[in-house]
């Protein structure tokens, strides 16, 4: 069974909410990325979203744009990230890890080669913000050829409205609820109809509902926590790492605190 789905099932059985963090692959370097993944998992992070730095990250705000830019300048690539994944799996990390990436990287490698590389290196899921439902057939066809292929995580937005049932019909793992219009990391400026929107998704979804974009602390989501099954923190987590000079103790403490409040 897929690691993400296994984890979601475990959490459901324990009646716990999930906590997911995003980090940019290769920032500041791959050794550190591995260390952050390991310490974050030990601190209770349920899934790691590993961002593949792209030259033109249109779905990302300033923090992740800057992180991607620096990672690329430090030599981070999709190929090296696959290598790092192989290493970390060989080192015994068995938790769920997914790639957040842009479609050009998939396309550049070739969809078939890409899917094979994901399987060989133990990638459990994919979040591709510039690949909306209508453009997914090519990738889905390739993924469907293998039992152990990563799952494609579906995103919904506050304005998705009538599209939600279509998007969620065959969705797997969890559904990623984008909490605001625009890009990642825009403070806690959630959409004005955020509650109604989350309730709507929750009502339709057969899988856990995660909320992401602009979340910094537990307090940001406190008033909405009854409508979601977990939270995703990206830009704020990158900032935290940057400001602490990649002190994994600082990030682990942050995860512990968020996770415990979420399940209090």
């Amino acid at each position, binding site marked *: 069974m897929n690691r993400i789905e296994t984890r979601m099932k475990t959490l459901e059985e324990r009646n716990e909410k999930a906590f997911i963090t995003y980090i940019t692959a290769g920032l500041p370097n791959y050794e550190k990325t591995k260390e952050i993944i390991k310490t974050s998992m030990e601190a209770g992070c349920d899934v790691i979203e590993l961002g593949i730095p792209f030259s033109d990250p249109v779905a990302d705000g300033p923090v992740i744009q800057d992180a991607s830019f620096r990672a690329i300048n430090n030599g981070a690539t999709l190929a090296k990230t696959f290598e790092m994944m192989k290493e970390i799996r060989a080192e015994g990390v068995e938790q769920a890890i997914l790639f957040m990436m842009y479609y050009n990287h998939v396309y550049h490698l070739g969809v078939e080669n890409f899917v094979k590389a994901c399987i060989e290196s133990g990638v459990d899921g994919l979040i591709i913000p*510039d690949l909306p439902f209508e453009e997914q057939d090519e990738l889905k066809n390739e993924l469907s050829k293998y039992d152990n292929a990563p799952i494609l995580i579906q995103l919904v937005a506050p304005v*998705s*409205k009538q599209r939600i049932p279509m998007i969620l019909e065959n969705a797997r793992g969890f559904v990623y609820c984008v909490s605001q219009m625009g890009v990642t990391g825009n403070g806690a400026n959630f959409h004005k109809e955020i509650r109604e929107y989350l309730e709507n998704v929750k009502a339709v979804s057969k899988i856990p509902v995660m909320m992401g974009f602009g979340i910094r602390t537990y307090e940001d989501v406190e008033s909405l926590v009854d409508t979601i099954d977990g939270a995703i923190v990206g830009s704020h987590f990158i900032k935290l790492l940057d400001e602490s000079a990649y002190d994994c103790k600082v990030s682990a403490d942050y995860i512990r605190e968020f996770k415990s409040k979420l399940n209090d």
Partner: protein
Amino acid sequence: MKEEKYYGKFGGQYVSESLMNTLDELSKAFEEAIADPKFIEEYNYYLKQYVGRETPLYKAERLSKKYGAKIYLKREDLNHTGAHKINNVIGQILLAKRMGKTKIIAETGAGQHGVATATGAALFNMECTVYMGEEDIKRQSLNVFRMELLGAKVEAVKTGSRTLKDATNEAIRSWAKNAEDTFYIIGSAVGPYPYPKMVKEFQKVISVEAKKQILEQEGRLPDAVVACVGGGSNSIGMFADFIEEKDVKLVGVEAGGLGIETGKHASAMALGKMGTLHGMRTYLLQDENGNIDLAHSISAGLDYPGVGPEHAYLRDSGRVEYVSITDKECMEALMELNELEGILPAIESAHALAHVIKMAKEMKEDQIIVMCLSGRGDKDINTIQKYIRGEETNK
């Protein structure tokens, strides 16, 4: 539904989920508008009375005599604001108004589309923000000043390469955030569907006029039609009404920069590497890791790493031939048009001209070439001066 969003395997809508309903609304509003005679009447009114259409189709006598074929110039440089860009802006801004949007955003490289959009926004009393790379702001300070005079806000983009590619990224981000009241006016034949279709629709007036004019002046269709290609808006407009005329050879001219072999160029189709960027699947300049490469051209308007999806399709289907012209070749052609015809073309348009000259040398005296002179060169005076003095002209 899906089929119509594609040109063969190119095009599509590679955008975030937040924009899918917006694109759907836009498609519907656009189709309704162009089927509405009142909308078309209004569009035509502004093209005639405000933009100054129709533009002349001028036979460049001395140039023709020198190179041995009849060379006709479609004078888009004589439009209000000095280039073809305004045709599309008028169309899209009327659509924005019809959709009840109050704010306009746009991206710009050299500033021509930015100036055209700021002009339209002033005309129709809309709030306008133009995204422009910090590098381009430095290179094109006069156009920045013009946009500000027109009441637009110029937002400096400080990410990535700080040029057109990044300005477009930032415009897309801002649009995803504010789509509920904001209309994004894309200036080139790029972006997610229906943008390439809209831009073609609002630029096809170039070829509709040119076809009528050449029939009046020569009594027959031309042997060849030539236009420069960055994202491809003037060229798709120039080709549109000739695509079905199978005996007319169509040629698109990309910017060859310092030469394709140097890697410093803007010829996305010369290498033929497909990818996805700015909402579309098309040919893109990319590095070995799948990141988008920087384009290089003396002309800021062609300095774009991709090309409109319909051009990618027209290349693969063989209907249009795409070639490259280097910085040096286009500057020689630019000088020559000044000397022989008293016309200062935009550096973009001089790329098309340089190839027209090459073609004319191989053609017979009674053969006809029509090229799109997409803009005037006043905006390029500083670059031209630097080039003549042998100074650095790019970056």
